[in-house]
Each structure stands twice: as structure tokens, then as C-alpha cells.
């Protein structure tokens, strides 16, 4: 489903990459260990994390994620924000806990696009 629909439904704050909210979210991944995210997430995933430092942008860019969701109202650092703007990576802030953020996103994707979560 379109990232913009998730942003709207969950009331996510858009901190960067507003020009790419039309990206297709094909799935999601939750992780704070960058090697885990590098190895196991997929292109088009919406990445949910509590990491706020600038290295998350390189990971999201390399993996071609649809965007990054920072949980529990965590704000990105200044460097992170600048890198996200430069790379055009949607950087979103969720007011919810990691568990609730992931659960809500999962529900939305699962009900909208069955094919995107099934065959991974």
C-alpha cells in the first residue's frame, strides 16, 4: 500500500522525504541491530526502529526501504535529518511504542496487500 496512507492513518510526523510518500510499502521490518536489518529486511519495507543516528539512513538507502519509522516519538538527530533530506528517504516519527507501531502497520498491510507479506 502507499506510504502516504499509513502516514495518514497513524498520524505519523513526516520529518524528511515528503516527496516520496507515494512509495509502495511492500512489507515491514523491525530492528535496532543494523547488521540484522541489512541481512534480513527487503526492498520496499517500512523499517521500524528506535535508532535515531545518521547511519540508519545509509542502511535504508542501501536496502531501498520505503521509509523509516522512529518509535515512541523519538526525533532524529540533526545529522540524520540532513542525510535523510539529501537521500530523499522518508523519515517518520510515530507516537506509539515499537510494538504498537509495528502492529498497526502490519494490520494495514495485511488487509490491503496479501501478496506482499505472504511470499517472502
Amino acid at each position: 500500500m502507499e506510504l502516504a496512507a499509513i502516514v495518514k492513518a497513524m498520524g505519523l510526523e513526516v520529518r524528511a522525504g515528503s516527496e516520496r510518500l507515494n512509495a509502495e510499502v511492500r512489507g515491514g521490518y523491525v530492528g535496532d541491530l543494523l547488521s540484522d536489518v541489512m541481512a534480513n529486511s527487503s526492498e520496499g519495507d517500512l523499517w521500524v526502529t528506535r535508532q535515531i543516528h545518521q547511519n540508519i539512513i545509509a542502511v535504508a538507502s542501501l536496502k531501498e526501504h520505503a521509509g523509516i519509522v522512529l518509535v515512541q516519538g523519538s526525533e532524529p538527530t540533526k545529522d540524520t535529518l540532513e542525510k535523510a533530506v539529501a537521500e530523499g528517504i522518508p523519515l517518520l516519527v510515530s507516537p506509539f511504542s515499537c510494538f504498537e507501531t509495528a502492529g498497526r502497520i502490519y494490520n494495514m498491510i495485511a488487509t490491503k496487500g496479501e501478496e506482499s507479506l505472504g511470499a517472502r
Partner: protein
Amino acid sequence: MQANAKPLYEDSFAVEGGNFDNAGRVSSNIKSILKKMGLSSDVVRRAALVAYESEINIVSYSRGGLIHLRVGSDRVLIEAVDEGQGIADIELAMQKGYSTATEKIREMGFGAGMGLYNIKSFSDYFQITSEVGRGTCLKMIISISDAAGA
């Protein structure tokens, strides 16, 4: 690719030790080069991963190093050579979950002890040599095969 065949692409990229601000830049560069060459998304994805983990290792554990990229008709070769502390027990370092990362590195989500393990599992050929006090050299090959598809 014969050993002496002319590569389709060859270049070396410097990686600064200890500088996390730019960590990922070289692997990002390598990824876009491979993508532009029209390699399959599977090859690009695996090459980007091994390049990224190698780059993070150089940043985390060495004074600096070089990542060498050589693309042939049937393979992508990535070599990561650093000057640094080296690895005393390679077998231990290869184990998933084993890491000598500092607290500062771990706080950023690195140092999960997955880097070398991931490099090995995502490459078709992997060789590691290291000398304590001198540095470490990683050699990784991702095979380009038409059968592998996208």
C-alpha cells in the same frame, strides 16, 4: 572470468577508520556502480551487503583501509584490506554473536557479532586472513550466473 581477463570494471575506494559519519558511503557507491552495470538485483543486493559489512568493520576496528571492486563477466570480487588491530582468533570472530565492539559502537546498533557471519553467508566465496597488530584482509566473490535470475 579467466585470471588474466580484463575486468569490466575495477576501482578502489578508501575507507576512513573511526569515522562513522560517512560509514556506508563506499558501499552505496559500489551498489550504484553495479546497478548501473545492469547486474541482477540478487547480485547487487548481496554485493552491497558484503561491501557494507566490510566497510563497517574497517570503520569500527581499523585505522583505515581500502575496498577494492573488480567486476568480471562471471563474478563480482570485493576485497577489503585494512591496517589495524587484526583478529587473533578468526574462528571465534566468525561465530554469529561474537563481537569485540566497544559500548559506543554497540549503542549505534553495530557490533552485534553478525558482520563476518553475514559476509560469509551472502557471498559465494569468502576468504579471511589477518595478522594481529597489522590488519585484516577479506576476499569475497559473488557469482554472476544467469540461472540465478533477479
